[in-house]
C-alpha cells in the first residue's frame, strides 16, 4: 500500500510539472502583454517597464518558469513583499497573492460540491437500486425514463428556470449566495440550496442510470446465481452480493466527478454567480492573469490526480482480488 502510494505520488508530481510547463509556455507563446492590464489606460513605456520588472516579466520565459515553480516550494520575494512557501505569485490583475485568493475561494466550491455530491450520490444510488430491484415494473420504467430526460438537461438551462420559478416570480427562496458555515449555518444551507439541487439534478439522473445498469449486470453474474441457488433470500443476494460488485464502477465515476468538481464547478458557479474557484478561473482567463490561471489549473489538476489515486486505492478494499502494484 505504501509503495503504491509512493509510486503514484511520484507520477502525480511528474504530471503536475508537465501541466504547469504546458500552461506556462503556451500562455507566453501568445503575443499578449499581461502587464498592459495592470498598467491601466494611460500607460507610458516607463510605467510599463516598471510593471514588467515588478511582475518579473522582463526575464526570459524559461527563467520565469523556473522562478514560478521554485517559488511554490520555497517562496519568493516580490516588489510587493515576500511571498511565503506555497507561492503562486501575485495576480497580474488584482495584485493579491494567488494562493490566498485560492484559499479564500475554495470553501465556496467545496460547500457547493460536498452538498451537491451528498444529494446526488444518495438519491442517485437509491433510485438506481430501486429501479434494478423492480426491474421491468412500472416504477423501473418511470425512474428510467425520468433519469434519461433529466440527465440530458443542462445546468445553464435548468438553473435560470429554477431561479425564475422559485426566486423571482414567487420569492419562495432568496437569491443563491454563499455565507460561511461558521458564521450562519442556516444561511449557508438556504443560500446554497438551489445550486445544490440544480447541480445534482443532472448528476442524480446519471447515477440512477449507472447504478441501475451496474446492479442489473451484477445480478446476472455467476456468484449471484450461486447465492440464489444456495437458497439465500432475495434481499441478502441483492444487498450483500450484487451490491458489492456494483460498487466498483460507481466508486470510479464518483471519484472522478468529485475530483473534477473540487477544481471548480464552472458552469454552476457562473449560472448562480457564486464566487468559487470556477468563477475565479473564468475571470483570470478574461484578464490574462497568468499566475491565477496557473494556480487554479494546478490546484484543480492536483485534485483530479488525487482522487484518481484514491479510487485505485479503494478498489483494493472493495474487491480483495485487486492487488495494488
Amino acid at each position, binding site marked *: 500500500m505504501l509503495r503504491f502510494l509512493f509510486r503514484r505520488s511520484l507520477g502525480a508530481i511528474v504530471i503536475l510539472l508537465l501541466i504547469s510547463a504546458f500552461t506556462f509556455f503556451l500562455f507566453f507563446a501568445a503575443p499578449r502583454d499581461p502587464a498592459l492590464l495592470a498598467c491601466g489606460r494611460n500607460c507610458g513605456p516607463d510605467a510599463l517597464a516598471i510593471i514588467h520588472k515588478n511582475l518579473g516579466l522582463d526575464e526570459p520565459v524559461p527563467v520565469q518558469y523556473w522562478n514560478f515553480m521554485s517559488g511554490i516550494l520555497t517562496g519568493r520575494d516580490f516588489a510587493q513583499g515576500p511571498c511565503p512557501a506555497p507561492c503562486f505569485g501575485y495576480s497580474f490583475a488584482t495584485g493579491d497573492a494567488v494562493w490566498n485568493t485560492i484559499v479564500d475561494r475554495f470553501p465556496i466550491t467545496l460547500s457547493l460540491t460536498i452538498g451537491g455530491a451528498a444529494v446526488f450520490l444518495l438519491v442517485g444510488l437509491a433510485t438506481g437500486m430501486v429501479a434494478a430491484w423492480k426491474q421491468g415494473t412500472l416504477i423501473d420504467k418511470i425512474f428510467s425514463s425520468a433519469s434519461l430526460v433529466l440527465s440530458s438537461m443542462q445546468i445553464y438551462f435548468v438553473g435560470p*428556470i429554477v431561479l425564475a420559478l422559485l426566486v423571482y416570480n414567487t420569492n419562495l427562496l432568496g437569491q443563491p449566495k454563499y455565507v460561511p458555515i461558521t458564521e450562519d449555518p442556516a444561511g449557508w444551507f438556504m443560500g446554497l440550496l438551489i445550486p445544490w439541487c440544480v447541480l445534482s439534478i443532472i448528476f442524480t439522473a446519471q447515477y440512477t442510470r449507472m447504478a441501475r445498469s451496474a446492479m442489473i449486470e451484477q445480478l446476472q453474474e455467476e456468484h449471484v446465481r450461486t447465492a440464489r441457488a444456495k437458497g439465500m433470500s432475495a434481499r441478502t443476494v441483492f444487498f450483500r452480493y450484487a451490491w458489492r460488485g456494483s460498487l466498483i464502477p460507481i466508486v470510479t465515476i464518483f471519484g472522478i466527478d468529485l475530483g473534477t468538481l473540487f*477544481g471548480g464547478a464552472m458552469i454552476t458557479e457562473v449560472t448562480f454567480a457564486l464566487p468559487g474557484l470556477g468563477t475565479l478561473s473564468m475571470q483570470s*482567463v478574461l484578464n490574462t492573469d497568468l499566475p491565477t490561471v496557473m494556480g487554479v489549473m494546478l490546484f484543480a489538476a492536483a485534485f483530479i490526480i488525487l482522487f484518481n489515486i484514491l479510487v485505485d486505492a479503494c478498489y483494493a478494499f472493495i474487491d480483495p482480488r485487486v492487488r495494488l502494484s
Partner: protein
Amino acid sequence: MFQENSARGHFAMTSPSQAAVTETDTPGLVPDGLNSKKKRKTSALTGRSPGQLMWARFKRDRTGVISACVVLFFFAIGLFAPVISKIYGKDPYTRYGQNTPGLLINQYPAQPNGGISSDFWFGIEPGLGRDVFMQLLYGIRNTLGLAVAITIVSVLTAIVLGVAAGYFGGRIDYFVGRFIDLLMAFPNQLFYVAFVPVVAAILVAPEDEMPPWLRAVIIILVMWFLGWMSLARLLRGQVLSLREREFVEAAKVSGASPWRIIRRELVPNVMTPILVQTTYMLPNFVTSIAGLSFLGVGLVEPTPDWGRMFANAADYYRNDITYLFFPGVAMVLFIVAFNLLGDSVRDAFDPKRAR
C-alpha cells in the same frame, strides 16, 4: 458534455467492469468460438454480414428508429437552414425588433410570450430584436457542424494512436499511455476556457479582426486536444487482445506489412466500438461547445450559436423566459434522442446485453 462532470467520460471507459464488458461486447468481431457457429448457420441460410444483422436488429427497435429520426431531423434542419431561411423569409442577422418600431418596448418584445406571432414563430430576441427561430436554426447548424468536425478528428486520432499503441506495444504503447494519463489530468473545462483565447491570440494579432471560420477552427483544435483519449484507450485494449488472434498471426506469416494488418485486419474488427462510442461522443461535444459559448469563449457575435443563446438568455430570462425556452427544449430533445440512439446502436450490436 460540458457539464461539471465532463472529465469523467474518459475515465469511465477504464473502469474494470466496463473493460470486462467491452471485451465480450462485440459479437461481430469474434470470428471463432460460439458466435461464429451461430453466424455460420445464419450465413449458410441468408449470407448476411454482421453489419446487415445489426441493421436488421436496429430496424426492429422502435425507440431506436424514432430517436434516429429525431437526430436526423436536427441534422436536416441544420443542413437546410439556408433553404428554410429563404422560405421563411427572414435571416438570423437582421435586427427586426430594432428596425420595425413597436415590436420591442424597452428591450423586450411588445407582444406576450416573447413576441411569438405568425411572423416570428419562436418570438423575437430581447435587446437586439433578431428572429429567434432563425437564430436557433443557424445556431444548431453551426454547433452541429463544429461537433461533427471535432468528432471526426477525435475518432481518427483515437484510431491512429489507440491501434498503434495496442498493435506495436512496447515503447509506443508506453508513450501513448503516459500521454493519455497526462491529458486526462487536465481539468478540461478550465483547459477549454483558458486555451481558446490563448490559441486565438497566437493565431491572430490583437489589432486584427478574427474571421469566424478561424474561431471555429480554434474551438475544434482545443476540444480535439482533450477529446480523443477515451476511445483511444478502448481501442488499445481491443487491439491488444486482437493481435494475439490466429487471423492476425496468419496475416503476419503470409508476409503482410504492419500497415496492411492494421488497415485490413484490425480496424475492421474494431468498427463496432468505434461506432458505439461515436454516438456517445457527439452529443457530449455538442453540450461542451454550448457550455463554452455559455461561458463566453465560443463562437462570437454575429455568428449565430446555440450555446450563446443561453448566455444571452441569462441577461433577459427574468422578464422574458420564452427566449430561453426554445433553445433549451431543443437541446434536451436532441440530447435525449442521441442518447437513446446510442443505447439502441449498442443493443443492435450486442443483443445479449440488457439495457
